[in-house]
């Protein structure tokens, strides 16, 4: 019958109240946002009176989580990048080469002399002069292999070594390639995150997608090109010995060397050793500064091992040139004047102030282990986002009012109950969205509007059922009770099927579509809750007070 336990009543009102409280900050969006930002700044950069004043714009005893606005509402840039994981293989092989050389040298008696041959990227090929020593050579090279420690590749080695005739081929094993790909993507993700954090924008989304992709969304940034400038370059910094200088890009480099262009001298090409003396990975700091002529430059400092290598090299090679190479382009190629101890130095070149600042950020954050290919780029201007918010707001309000009026006209007092539930419903959606830190997108707003339209469905089902029960001659209390219990199965079935589609949308979709799935799914849950519990409670409370002999729905 029409009885609801006290604890249930309290619980229902508590849920509604919590929802309203959680939704409240969104009603004062700018104010709460400023307050939150200021609070974060106080932690990061220290307390100032202005920040304190901003923080106090919003009372601390109230919840302060907000619904995040998606890129299509706030404006910003979206990139989908694919990490070129194969880039790493070549570098791994180049790093292995000195080891192979050193291991084979003592075996000259059995394998004869050996030479590295031209080979596809990611392979070492070497020719030995005594093919009969192949067995021993393979044994020695295989001795360099390390077992893989990953779960999937347990038991396998990191390199595959094979020999045919007088030719030995070394490459990464499949298992190691998999493990290496995973590492490369994770490293790239971490470095991209650091680079974006250095620039200091709000709430960037940096996510791995699939095996080798990274999704980057940064609200508030001017354009995708700007974002690419920050994360797009690998910023692979090396200090390499210079073998020669010329003007022919196709000049024979010799094995273990490569020919790369110069940034500042058009038409000039340097031949450098592929294995660098020191790499950017050993940098501990990089800051924009100016050289003695007042031109923008970048100051850097090595860690201890980097400093030692750099110091040793400069001591041994006074008078010969060495190249500072960024992403396979020579930035400058000074001649070593003296031994440089201490491990700090300066990179000069034709920089603008902005370029030197950017370069310093890139160097500090570390080099990307591999190149990125951009598969998807989206820029949404803030004006368009604001237009969409405004339009969405008006549309939601009009839809809301329309449905409220229509319900009141159709069902009278019961319609008013449904309307209160509907208002609570939207508040609950916003409350939950804030609570889980979900992102509201333009299709998400459409999802809310659709929920407003559909949320009344459960109530309509119930009210229509009550009407039928009254028509078949039941008393008011019994009609209400029957109406609820008989409508329940239809309500559940109908909403569960819709919920299934929302879940599939969420699982398969991305970005805006996912935003839509979230609001739709939440809307279904809250509308079922408000229909089954909230309106029922209101009707029961009204009924207990009035005890009407006859009801009209």
């Amino acid at each position: 019958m029409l009885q609801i336990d006290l604890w249930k009543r309290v619980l229902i009102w508590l849920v509604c109240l919590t929802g309203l409280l959680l939704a409240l900050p969104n009603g004062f969006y700018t104010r709460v946002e400023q307050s939150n930002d200021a609070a974060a700044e106080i932690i990061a950069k220290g307390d100032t009176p202005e920040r304190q004043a901003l923080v106090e714009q919003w009372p601390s005893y109230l919840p302060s989580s907000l619904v995040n606005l998606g890129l299509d509402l706030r404006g910003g840039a979206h990139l989908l990048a694919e990490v070129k994981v194969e880039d790493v293989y070549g570098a791994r092989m180049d790093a292995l080469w000195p080891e192979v050389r050193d291991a084979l040298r003592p075996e000259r008696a059995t394998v004869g002399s050996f030479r590295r041959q031209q080979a596809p990227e990611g392979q070492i090929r070497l020719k030995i002069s005594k093919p009969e020593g192949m067995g021993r050579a393979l044994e020695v090279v295989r001795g360099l292999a390390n077992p893989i420690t990953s779960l999937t590749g347990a038991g396998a080695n990191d390199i595959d070594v094979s020999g045919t005739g007088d030719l030995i081929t070394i490459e990464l094993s499949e298992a190691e390639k998999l493990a290496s790909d995973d590492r490369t993507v994770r490293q790239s993700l971490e470095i991209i995150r650091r680079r974006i954090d250095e620039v200091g924008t709000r709430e960037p989304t940096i996510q791995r997608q699939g095996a080798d992709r990274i999704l980057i969304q940064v609200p508030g940034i001017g354009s995708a090109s700007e974002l690419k400038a920050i994360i797009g370059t690998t910023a692979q910094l090396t200090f390499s010995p210079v073998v020669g200088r010329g003007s022919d890009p196709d000049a024979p480099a010799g094995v273990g060397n490569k020919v790369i262009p110069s940034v500042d001298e058009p038409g000039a090409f340097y031949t450098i050793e592929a294995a660098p003396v020191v790499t950017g990975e050993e940098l501990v700091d990089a800051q924009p500064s100016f050289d003695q002529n007042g031109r923008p430059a970048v100051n850097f400092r090595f860690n201890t091992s980097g400093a030692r290598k750099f110091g040793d090299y400069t001591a041994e090679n006074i008078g010969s040139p060495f190249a500072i190479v960024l992403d396979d382009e020579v930035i400058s190629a000074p001649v070593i004047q003296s031994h440089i101890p201490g491990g700090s130095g300066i990179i000069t070149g034709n920089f603008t102030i902005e370029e030197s600042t950017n370069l310093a950020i890139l160097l500090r954050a570390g080099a990307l282990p591999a190149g990125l290919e951009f598969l998807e780029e989206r820029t949404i201007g803030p004006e368009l986002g604001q237009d969409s918010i405004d339009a969405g707001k008006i549309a939601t309000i009009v839809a809301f009012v329309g449905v409220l009026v229509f319900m009141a006209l159709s069902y009278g007092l019961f319609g008013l109950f449904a309307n209160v539930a509907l208002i609570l419903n939207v508040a609950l959606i916003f409350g939950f969205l804030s609570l889980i830190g979900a992102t509201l997108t333009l299709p998400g707003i459409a999802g809310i509007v659709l929920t407003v339209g559909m949320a009344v469905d459960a109530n309509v089902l119930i009210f229509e059922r009550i009407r039928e029960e009254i028509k078949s001659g039941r008393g008011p209390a019994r009609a209400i009770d029957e109406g609820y219990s008989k409508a329940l199965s239809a309500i559940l079935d109908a909403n569960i099927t819709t919920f299934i589609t929302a879940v599939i949308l969420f699982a398969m979709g991305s970005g805006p579509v996912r935003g839509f799935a979230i609001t739709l799914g939440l809307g279904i849950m809250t509308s079922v809750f408000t229909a089954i519990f909230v309106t029922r409670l209101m009707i029961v409370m009204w009924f207990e007070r009035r005890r009407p002999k006859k009801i009209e729905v």
Partner: protein
Amino acid sequence: MRLRLVPQETSFDFFSKWKIWLGISALMMVVGLVSFGLQGLNFGIDFRGGTTVRTESTTAIDVGQYREAIAPMELGDISITEVFDPTFEEDQHVAMIRIQAQASGEAISGEVIEELQQALDAVAPGIKFVSVESVGPKVSGELVQTAILAVVLAIGAVLIYIWLRFEWQFALGAVVALVHDVVLTIGIFSELQIKFDLAIIAALLTIVGYSLNDTVVVFDRVRENLRRYKKKDLSEVLNLSINETLSRTVMTSVTTLLALVSLYVLGGDVIRGFVFAMIWGVIVGTYSSVFVASTILLWLGVKRDWSKQANTAGNQFGNIDA
């Protein structure tokens, strides 16, 4: 005084002309499919790669001039359309420029966009690019696959759910109605050549959800009435059930349409295609749950031996509708 869209008691005969209704539906599906076969869909860049630029300027737009300004850049197939919307300001002129996917697997480069802006600035001083979206052909192919998979999965999941809750005849009826709705929606997008992008897939799935919602409510009542009136013909029971739920069907459709129409008119042009799909879907979905799903059910017939009660015993909602 209450507002009543449907009289209190109705006794429309929904099945006397069922051949005509099914015929109309079949005809419309054929028209949709033929249109899809002949002219295909106007895929957005999500599905075929390429770049769209949304420009805004204070000077009136002359599409011919824009085209001439861009022509020297040799970007391949370009389409330029002016966008009109009641929410725009007086001197707000918006155009959408679509550039075909470039040869490489990547999205378009920033330099090209800059060059484009300079070229257009000559004919429309102060032109702004309010949004630039670029999708490489590599991703768009995958997006197509995922989209198709999502729709198929949704329909499959629903089929299973209804099969568990009702019987296979109900499930089949509901799914035929769903396929009907999806085909008609794709058909109208093809017929009117409205841009078909990722958001439309979301709309399609919502239509699936909505139409199902409607169908399930009718079926729920059919199941109830089948138990109550064991002697009546299936067609009588179906008619009775649809009539009983008619008031609810219309109410819900009207409130949903009320909300959607306000979004369509006032929500701006960015989501208009999306909202259009949903409005169409609500109308088609309401129609199909009455005239397609129930007719199929009538056609297939239902096992009416309810004495065993085994059908609802195996799930958690089994006892609710006693």
